[in-house]
């Protein structure tokens, strides 16, 4: 009998602001199969997406993200058949809606709005 061993999914995480930075620090240390890629690193991004299963944007709800760039990256990922997800850390009022959220909604297959920074890590770990 052939035993099938599954490799962890490859996930590219990108984002901006402090929450994304915190996620990056954790991911580097602990999660196999997850690569952090700054959103603005154009040439490296193309390479990073090459063998990815999923692209995950991480950002704080009130943070500034280059939305044009974000849509371009999401579009590039989709063009390669890569799933796109967004995790938004929202520690503000529960019903607050931001431009960033609306933008993620257009760009991603799934948007998760979490209140606890630890959930960012947990969600990415679950998606591996």
């Amino acid at each position, binding site marked *: 009998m052939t035993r099938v061993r599954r490799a962890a999914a490859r996930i590219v995480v990108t984002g901006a602001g402090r929450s994304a930075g915190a996620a990056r620090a954790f991911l580097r240390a602990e999660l196999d199969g997850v690569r952090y890629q700054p959103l603005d690193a154009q040439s490296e991004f193309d390479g990073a997406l090459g063998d990815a299963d*999923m692209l995950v944007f991480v950002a704080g709800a009130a943070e500034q993200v280059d939305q044009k760039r974000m849509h371009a990256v999401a579009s590039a990922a989709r063009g390669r058949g890569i799933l796109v997800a967004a995790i938004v850390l929202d520690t503000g009022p*529960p019903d607050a*809606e931001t431009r960033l*959220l609306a933008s993620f909604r257009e760009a991603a297959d*799934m948007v998760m709005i979490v*209140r606890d920074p630890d*959930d960012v890590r947990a*969600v990415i770990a*679950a998606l591996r």
Partner: protein
Amino acid sequence: MALTQEQQQTLVSTNAGTPMGELFRRYWIPALLAEELPEPDCAPLRVRLLGEDLIAFCDTSGRYGLVGEFCAHRGVSLFFGRNEECGLRCSYHGWKYDVEGRCIDMPSEPEESNFKDKVRIAAYPLTRLGDMLWAYLGPPELQPPQPEIEWAALPASRVYVSKRLQRSNYLQALEGGIDSSHVSFTHRFNLDSDPLHRGSLGNAYLKRDGRPRFEVVESDGGLFIGARRNADDERYYWRITQYLMPWYTIIPPFGENLIGAHAWVPIDDESCWTWSINYHPLRALEEREIADMRAGGGIHCVYKPGTYEPVAEASNDYLIDRRAQRANESFSGVAGIAMQDASLQESMGPIQDRTKERLGTSDSGIIMARQRLLRAAKALQDDAEQPPGLEPSAQRVRSASLLLPKDVPFQQGAADALRLHPDTAFVSL
């Protein structure tokens, strides 16, 4: 690896002393249908909840009791006891217990002895709300207010409740309820014909767009899980499921049909009770609706006579009908929404191995529900933090299905529809 072995073990283990077992003991638990203890001094019942063996009885004065199964004397099961004169008497030596677990008679010892006053068995509150009996297995001093989930607080005439034995861990059943994307597949050929789903405008959107996009947002008591599908150029069709800690879901409604809801209560780690509830907030249920549900329509099932076990089960391959599957009368070939779910969830094995699964973006609700459970269990264990969803305000929520302009997020566009306003209609398409 999706979940670590440790996370998996934490999530699926619910016996006393485990993190999840201790968390669940802080909530009121759907334990029995009221019909199971129909009158004072009726036959006592065996009840197993969260791995704990108990006996339920209704005493002479109509008080409900839920006590440890075994007599403190020699460990005999009180199932064989006599329910008489305000207590449950062991059939071995006549020791008798009241609904609070106190030994109130000990005829096998000298009459002048006060030994009986020193003997107790475990006893838990068991209270009736509508047609259900609810148990609380946690510390007495931390007993929360009674549940105020809409269906639990409505008059019994507006609610139909059934329960069925499911031979799987509670979590894979709960996750099936949270996973809205399976409806477009598993149940797609039932939506037009099932008496409790047909006639909904939303059915067309569900079938037309099998790739919903998900948006998951934490609520005070659990999660809002929004699934959006394209309706037309300007609007999305949103189906918003409520997940309420620790094991409840409220299904988005289908047109004017009754609202559906579930609770998945662990019997032990390899089986659970699937509670299925339909209700209408404004009117009594019609005879036709009740007849349909009794016949296994909607989210209910057909039982083996005298039991709460479905006729369709693993040993008969859930009566799968390959002809119906080929003819697109049933996607999986299994009849009925309830058993379509049960057959697939039980096929994962008693406890699904989540260290080997591959989750996608449509599993976002499942991921977050696990996270909420793990976080609550840890906060309780480490910091004695009160679990979420115990406050009645967090339970006063509704699901909804509606059309919203594409630029309106569901948290805003459906905010009012997602709150429970007593004596108002629900928002449904």
